[in-house]
C-alpha cells in the first residue's frame, strides 16, 4: 500500500480506509493485534484485515458490515483528522489541472496545513517529481512528516518548518508550479517567483476573501506574472431518489366523445387510475437542503521566462 501506488492485499502497517456506509469513511492504521471500534462493532485487524483483499466486506462484531478500501488522496481528504481547514477534492482537481501537474513535476506548496492537497499533489507527480512543502506551525509540520512516512510517500516530499513569507520555500529555480494557501499570499509572491524555474511555471493562490485576491493579483502583476485569472468552483451534489407524485382527481371525464358514447365512457377510464390512488413514479434527483456555497477564490497565473 502507498498513496501513490495500488496494491491488492492489506498488510500490517498499511493505512486503510474503512467505509461505514453513506459517505462515511474513517482511516485505520493496520496493526497486528489491534482493534478498531465502529458503530457496527469491533474490527480485529489480525483476522479481519491483514491478508484480506482491499475492497473486501468485513463483518464486525455486532453483525453489521463495512468495506475496507485502498487509500486514495480523495478518500484521505474526506477522512483525515483536520488540524486546519482543508482543501476539498473539487478545488484540488481544478488546481491539479490548472497548474499542469503530472509525473515529474516539481511543486512548492505553503501552507501544508493538514496535508489534504499535499497528498493529491504527491499522487500526481509520482514517481519522478518532488514536493517542497512549507508549514510555519511546528506541530503541524511534524504531524504531516509522520503521515507522509506512514503513507509511504516520504521519498517524494520535503517538509520545511519555516515562514514562507520571510524565508521562502528553501529552494530556488526548481519548481514547475507553486501553490499558496496562506493568509497573506502577496508577501510570498516574490519567493514563489524565485522558487520557480527560469523557463517559467504556473502559480495558484487560494484565498477565502476577495480583498486577499485583489492584493495578490496586484502583487502578481507587479512581479511580472501573466495570464492572471481568478475563479471559483463549487460542487453540486444530486441525490438520486424515486419520487411518487399523486395525480389529482378531476372527476369523471366529460369530453364530447364520452357524452355521446354514454355509459361506456366510464368504462374507458385508464385501468391503473383508481379514483383516490392515482400516482406517478419518477426517478429524479433532489438537491441537498444546504450546500457549500464558498470555499475560496482560486487565482492562477503564469510566470514567463526570466
Amino acid at each position, binding site marked *: 500500500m502507498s498513496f501513490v*501506488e*495500488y496494491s*491488492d492485499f492489506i498488510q500490517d502497517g498499511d493505512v486503510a480506509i474503512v*467505509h461505514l*456506509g*453513506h*459517505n462515511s*469513511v474513517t482511516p485505520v492504521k493496520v496493526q497486528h493485534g489491534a482493534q478498531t471500534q465502529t458503530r457496527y462493532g469491533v474490527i480485529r485487524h489480525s483476522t479481519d484485515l491483514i491478508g484480506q*483483499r*482491499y*475492497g*473486501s*466486506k468485513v463483518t464486525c*462484531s*455486532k*453483525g*453489521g*458490515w463495512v*468495506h475496507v*478500501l*485502498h487509500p*486514495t*488522496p*480523495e478518500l484521505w481528504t474526506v477522512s483525515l483528522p483536520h488540524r486546519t481547514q482543508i482543501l476539498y*477534492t473539487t478545488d*484540488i*482537481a*481544478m488546481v*491539479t*489541472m*490548472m497548474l*499542469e501537474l*503530472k*509525473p*515529474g513535476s516539481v511543486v512548492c506548496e505553503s501552507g501544508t496545513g493538514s496535508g489534504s492537497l499535499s497528498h493529491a499533489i504527491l*499522487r*500526481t507527480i*509520482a*514517481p*519522478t517529481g518532488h514536493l517542497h512543502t512549507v508549514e510555519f506551525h511546528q506541530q503541524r509540520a511534524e504531524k504531516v512528516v509522520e503521515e507522509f512516512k506512514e503513507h509511504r510517500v516520504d521519498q517524494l516530499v520535503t517538509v520545511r518548518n519555516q515562514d514562507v513569507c520571510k524565508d521562502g520555500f528553501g529552494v530556488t529555480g526548481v519548481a514547475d508550479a507553486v501553490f499558496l494557501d496562506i493568509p497573506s499570499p502577496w508577501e510570498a509572491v516574490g519567493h514563489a517567483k524565485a522558487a520557480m524555474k527560469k*523557463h517559467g511555471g504556473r502559480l495558484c493562490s487560494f484565498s477565502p476573501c476577495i480583498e486577499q*485576491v*485583489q492584493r495578490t*493579483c*496586484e502583487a502578481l502583476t507587479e512581479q511580472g506574472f501573466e495570464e*492572471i*485569472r*481568478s*475563479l*471559483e*468552483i463549487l*460542487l*453540486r*451534489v444530486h441525490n*438520486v431518489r424515486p419520487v411518487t407524485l399523486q395525480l389529482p382527481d378531476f372527476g369523471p371525464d366529460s369530453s364530447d366523445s364520452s357524452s355521446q358514447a354514454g355509459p361506456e365512457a366510464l368504462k374507458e377510464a385508464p385501468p391503473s387510475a383508481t379514483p383516490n390512488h392515482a400516482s406517478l413514479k419518477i*426517478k429524479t*434527483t433532489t438537491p441537498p437542503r444546504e450546500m457549500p456555497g464558498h470555499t475560496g*477564490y482560486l*487565482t492562477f497565473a503564469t510566470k514567463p*521566462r526570466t
Partner: protein
Amino acid sequence: MAHNEDNDYEYRIKEGDHVVLKRGDVYKAVQIQRKKKVIFEKQWIFLDNAVGHLYSTTFEIASGGTLQPKENKETESSTDVQVAGTDNRHINDDGKSQKLTRDDIETMKEQGLTDKEIIKQLIDNSSTFNNKTGYAQDKYIKKKKKKYENTVMVLKPTCRILAMMYHGREPGKICHLRYDTLAQMLTLANIHAGSKVLVFETCAGLVLGSIMERMGGFGSVIQMYPGGGPVRAGVECFGFPAHFHDTLHEFPICHVNALLAGTLDASAKDSAPEEKQLSVAAEEEQKQPEAEKQEGSPEEESMEANTGDDVGQDQEKLEIEKRQEAKAQERKVKLEEKRRKLAAAAALLEGRNADGLVIASHFHPCSVLLGLLKFLSPSRPFVVFSQYKETLIECYTKLKEQGGTVNLMLTDTWLRHYQVLPDRTHPLLLMSGGGGYLLSGTTVATDPSKPAGSPQAEEPAPKRQKVKD
C-alpha cells in the same frame, strides 16, 4: 553557453512539433510545418519563423503572414490619464464620437501602423474620450487593443490548454465536456503513473490524451472503442514523446462479451472488423493493377506495332505480380500486427484487475458502465461523464440494484470567473451554463452469497445485539 542551450532544448519550438496558437482567450492546435499556411483568427500565418524560438514566445504577424518575435514588452504605461471625466451624464452614445471612418482605419492597417499607433489615432479622433472616466478609458483601450492586436503566442500543449481550446472552439466534439469537469474526472478516477486505466470516450481523444498526460508514460491505458477503430485525433495534439504510445492499447467493444465469457480467441481469425477492412482495401488494390493493365495495353499494342516486343509485356506482368505479392505481404503483416495488438490488449483485460475506468461519450453510458466495471479490481474508482443527468440517474439506479459499488455520487460543478481590478472587482458578466454531469464511485468485492437487491444492499441499521466477549 552550450550548457544553457542543452537546458533550453526541450523548451524550443521544433519543426513537426504540435503546438497551440493563442491570442487572448482563443486557442488553436496546429502542427509546425514549413511553408504551410495556417489560418488563425481570420489571418493567414506561416509558422516557419517560430522554429528555434522558445515556447511561449509572442510573435507579431507581419504582412504576408510571417512571424516576427515581438519586441520586449512595451511597458504597459497606463498612459497616466491627463484628462478624464467623473461620470457619463453628458456623454451621448450617438455613434458619432469617432471621427475616423472604417476606410481610414483600413488605410492605416495597410500602411502597416502598429496596433498602438492605430489606437492612439482612435483616441485622438474621439470626441468623447476625454470625458470618459479613467476606468472607462481603461476599458476602451483594452477593447481596442483586443481588436487591433496582431500577435500570436506559440504554446506547448497541455491538458489545460487543450481542454479550454476544445471547450471554446468545438464543444460538440467533446460532448460539451467543460474543462473543470474534465479536471474532476482525472482526480476522482485517481489517474496516476503506473496504473492500468480503461477508457471509453468519444471526445475526440481529449479525455484519452489527458489521462495519458497524467500517467506520464508509466502504466497502461486501454481504449475501448465502438465500431471500426479508435478515434484519437486529439491525442496527437498533446505532442507526446513516442514512448508514450507504447502504453496505449485499444480493444473493440464488440469483443467484450466474448472476452468476459472466455471465448475470445485473439490468435484466430477473430479480428473480423479489422480483417474486413483490410480485405476490402485489398480488393480495391487488386482492381488497380488490372486497370493499369488496361491502360497499358493500348500503349503496348502501339509498341507491338512499333517494336513487336513481347518481352516488354511479360516484364510488365511480372512487375504487376510482384507488386501484388508485396501488397499481400503488407496486408499479412498488418493483420498480424493487429492480431498481436488485440491479443496484448486482451491479456491486459483478462485479469480483470484494471485500476480505473473513465467513460465520456455520446453513447448511453449504462451498458458501457455495467459491462466494463467487470474488468476492475475491487476498491478502484470509476467515473462516468454524461451531458445529460438522466442517463446517470439510470446508471446510479442500476448500480445500487446490483451492488458491488460504494460512494456513488452524482455531481456537477459550478464555475465562475472573476474580473479583479482595483475598485472594479466582480464576477464576469457571462458564465458557463453547464459543463455536464459526473457519476463517480468505488468498486468493492462482490459478495456471491448475497443476492442482488437484498435488503442488506442498503446500509444496515446497527442492531442492538449485545455481543458478550
